[in-house]
């Protein structure tokens, strides 16, 4: 039986991916700086290169996992609801801030890529880069972008925010918890939010809400953009 024949079973994608993910979690527990996604993808790619199999062979069962990104997006309603209750009186102002941030993020990302001569699918892939991965992927598909590029950018935006976000904000005199939370949640989604949990409950709460809201606003804005592209 060849490797290809074994790989032909879609369920093998699950075995390989969960194994790589477990390994990545173990590495991440020991060395906090290693992003689990990177640590999980490298062994899978190395394995495929080693056995000389194309990506398509590995990804036959990819949908069995990727499909759950849909329900995972729906699941964002839970933290949004829980944190929304705690933030009641600030919500209208928060919504304005997140909406403004989402518009600025989409326009600046797209325009920068366009000015530097990127082809249309690449430009479209940069547009949803601030929002949480499952929503970014869906928005990218609506805009006919390349999901892999979007995923890479989303992760990097998260790491940038988690590493330098609070410092940059302090630099320009933003000190109150709600503004920091709103900025990190809008610019750096879940990765940024997770980095705030250690500092302040309030920042993390605002950030969780902002991250979900940014995903919703960005999809709405992308739907409008998609109308113009037709």
């Amino acid at each position, binding site marked *: 039986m060849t490797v290809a024949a074994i790989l032909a079973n879609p369920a093998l994608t699950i075995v390989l991916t969960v194994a790589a993910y477990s390994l990545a979690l173990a590495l991440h527990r020991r060395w906090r700086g290693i992003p689990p996604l990177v640590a999980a993808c490298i062994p899978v790619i190395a394995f495929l290169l080693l056995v000389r199999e194309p990506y398509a062979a590995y990804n036959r069962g990819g949908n069995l996992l990727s499909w759950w990104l849909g*329900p995972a997006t729906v699941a964002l309603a839970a933290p949004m609801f829980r944190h929304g209750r705690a933030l009641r009186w600030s919500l209208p102002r928060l919504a304005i801030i997140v909406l403004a941030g989402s518009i*600025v993020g989409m326009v600046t*990302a797209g325009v920068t*890529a366009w000015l530097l001569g990127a082809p249309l699918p690449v430009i479209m892939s940069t547009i949803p880069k601030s929002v949480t991965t499952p929503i970014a992927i869906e928005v990218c*598909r609506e805009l006919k972008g390349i999901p892999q590029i979007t995923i890479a*950018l989303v992760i990097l935006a998260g790491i940038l925010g988690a590493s330098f976000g609070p410092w940059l904000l302090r630099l320009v005199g933003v000190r109150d918890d*709600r503004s920091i939370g709103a900025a990190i949640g809008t610019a750096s989604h879940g990765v940024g939010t997770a980095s705030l949990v250690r500092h302040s409950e309030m920042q993390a709460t605002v950030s969780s809400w902002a991250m979900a809201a940014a995903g919703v606003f960005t999809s709405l804005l992308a739907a409008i953009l998609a109308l113009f592209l037709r």
Partner: protein
Amino acid sequence: MFDFLRGLAILVAFYLLGMLLHRWGVPIPGGVLGLLLLYFALLSGIVNFHWVERAAGFLLRHMVLLFIPLTVGLMDMGGLLSRQALAIFASLLVSFLAVLLTTGLLGRWLFTQNGDAEISQ
């Protein structure tokens, strides 16, 4: 275990509902429609928060697992990525700074102008 499965079933049901609306012409992705529908169902009390709490927590905690299959696809994109590296990374950096500063400064202006300190400390 039952709690967990019930929560998962509710999330899937809202996702399918969102997909259906999307198929019928609502131009927003099905997952986001499902998110909005569930959010309003939670606000109005149609869905009890405890029904979905555990399943939602599980999916969100292990979300990385779900996008590994897509991300591995980067292995086929070395050429495109290296040709477009400047545009892609410049756009990331410019846009990241723009979003962070817009939201942060707008927040400072909106949250501190009238000295309300209801919940921030």
